[in-house]
């Protein structure tokens, strides 16, 4: 039996709006989000902007706490931190790669000081020489060699790809078991994306971590992960093995997403999009299925109640009454 690295059960996160005009309303960023990430596995969370995927990562990293639902990491239900050491221990285990390699490295610090911090904060180095060796080791792992060319430089002296590698090195420095990668390549130039993605796959093999890989790119999700969960307007619409979900999408939204994604290799003949429109407001999400205003197969009952995320066999779940 494979162990579960991470499990979410019915997690809800709403952000209250505090302005006078919208008092009492809230942004429904995550509603009834449930999934399991196997130990050593990789799960892609795919969705458009505003679908709640970054909120999901932040809730798992506990940058902010969920409103309700269960979050289970390594078999242990997450409870409020009682002291700093509990919080540190959790954050050591669960690390987050941020999207923007330009914004997430302090421009006034040298690479050495940026990379030292996780070792110092978590007390992972045994003296100065051990720290130095570990810094070199981690730079080597992300393909930045020789290390002395990088350690004493500032972030602005590095290219976007190199900065993202530093960012990833920092994530792996603490020796996490779960890595949450929030669109790690979306801000990089196309020609260097593959290098970073391949490096992440190698790092995963070598360090035996589990990935939650957040992206809006279905093809990239397929490249990186064995399981895919597609989110729409704060809810998971379909989850299953990558080959099943992409090869034979069941939910109308997933079909739409697939038909909109560029796939020049599949013969260049395109069918027109079945649905138009954009993601609904999450302040007042549609009653019933959140996709129903755009769904080409909508039925009256879709407008009444939120469909359940139903098991359709083969480890696959779909949130649609028509499937």
């Amino acid at each position, binding site marked *: 039996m494979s162990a579960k690295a991470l499990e979410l059960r019915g997690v809800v996160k709403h952000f209250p709006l505090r302005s006078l005009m919208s008092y009492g309303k809230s942004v429904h960023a995550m509603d009834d989000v449930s999934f399991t990430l196997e130990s050593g596995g990789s799960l892609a969370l795919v969705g458009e902007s505003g679908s709640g995927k970054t909120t999901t990562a932040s809730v798992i990293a506990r940058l902010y706490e969920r409103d309700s639902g269960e979050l289970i990491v390594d078999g242990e239900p997450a409870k409020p931190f009682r002291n700093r050491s509990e919080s540190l221990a959790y954050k050591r285990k669960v690390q987050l790669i941020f999207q923007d390699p330009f914004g997430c490295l302090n421009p006034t610090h040298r690479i050495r000081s940026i990379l030292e911090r996780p070792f110092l904060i978590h007390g992972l180095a045994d003296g100065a020489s051990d720290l130095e060796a570990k810094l070199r080791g981690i730079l080597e792992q992300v393909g930045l060699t020789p290390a002395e060319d990088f350690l004493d430089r500032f972030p602005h002296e590095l290219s976007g790809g190199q900065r993202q590698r530093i960012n990833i090195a920092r994530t792996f420095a603490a020796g996490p078991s779960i890595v949450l990668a929030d669109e790690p390549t979306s801000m990089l130039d196309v020609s260097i994306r*593959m290098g970073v993605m391949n490096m992440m796959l190698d790092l995963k093999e070598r360090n035996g971590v589990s990935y939650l890989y957040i992206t809006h790119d279905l093809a990239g999700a397929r490249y990186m992960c064995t399981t895919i969960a597609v989110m729409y307007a704060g809810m998971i619409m379909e989850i299953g093995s990558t080959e099943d979900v992409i090869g034979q999408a069941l939910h109308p939204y997933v079909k739409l997403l697939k038909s*909109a994604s560029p796939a020049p290799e599949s013969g260049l003949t395109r069918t027109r999009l079945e649905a138009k429109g954009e993601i609904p407001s999450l302040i007042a999400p549609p009653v019933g299925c959140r996709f129903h205003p755009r769904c080409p197969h909508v039925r009256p009952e879709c407008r009444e109640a939120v469909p359940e995320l139903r098991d359709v066999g083969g480890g696959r779940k779909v949130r649609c009454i028509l499937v």
Partner: protein
Amino acid sequence: MAETALEVKNLSAGYATVKGFVRAVDDVSFTLTKGEFMGIAGESGCGKSTLAYAIMRILRDRARIESGSIWFKGKDFASLPLEDVEPHRWTDMAMVFQSAMNALNPVLSIGEQLTDAVHAHRQVTKAEAEGMAVAMLELVDINADRLRSYPHQLSGGMRQRVMIAMALILHPDLLIMDEPTTALDVVVQRSILEKIEELQTKLGFSVIFITHDLSLLVEISDALAIMYAGKIVECGPARELFSSPSHPYTQGLMDSFPSLTGPMVRIEGIKGKAPDLLSPPPGCRFAPRCPKVSPACLEAPGPGLVPSGSRRSCACVLVGGDR
């Protein structure tokens, strides 16, 4: 016989900086036939936006056209005084800018902005201009009652459609689009592309579509030009370029997008990073990153575009070539 809409010959343009002149567009030549959809693909800093700005003659401040010609409507736009270019701008050639959020004035309603474009170039009454704005908005599927809306009241996709409506309101012959869909989600992006194709069939204008997303361009373009470090390295019919790329950079780019269908293979992208345009490599600019580099590649001057088929040309010593 296909009529030529635009011919760019040996165009060089760039920016004066404190460190010297950066030639962002270096000896670029291409021909756009009437009604054609031409894609220009390249990574950030390759000069693709500078090329668009040069054609529109909206390079400002420290940027200028150095040499070359831009033949459009029987005139050389590169050497024409600005006041003679003015009457052609927007009436004959128009542009859709990358960020609709920043390109639209936040304190004017979209109706005012659309009619402004008309009044600037045509002697029409207020009612006539408004009529044109409504007709154009309907073409891009935006309801006429949105005329009184302000940009912040529209979604990202709608704003971009307003930009398209504004660019097309005077029925130009040439539409230049600079990364018009980059900030948009895939479904919205696809619906906008479908809209442009539909309008192009209806109105018969030519399109230059600039983006870094090659997988998208391959599907929608008739012709494709690949830019690298200020130069066009390969051009030809989009499908041919996709199925049999000649230039190692084009090959690398095609190998930078994971596929959505078909067998999963590890792809490598391109190693290294683009050169600094202040001091580009003396020979072929791609040589430092090229997996097939040979001594001849390092000799100055680098290879120029040489026809390598009926409608294709490529700038590489390994392909046809003049060496």
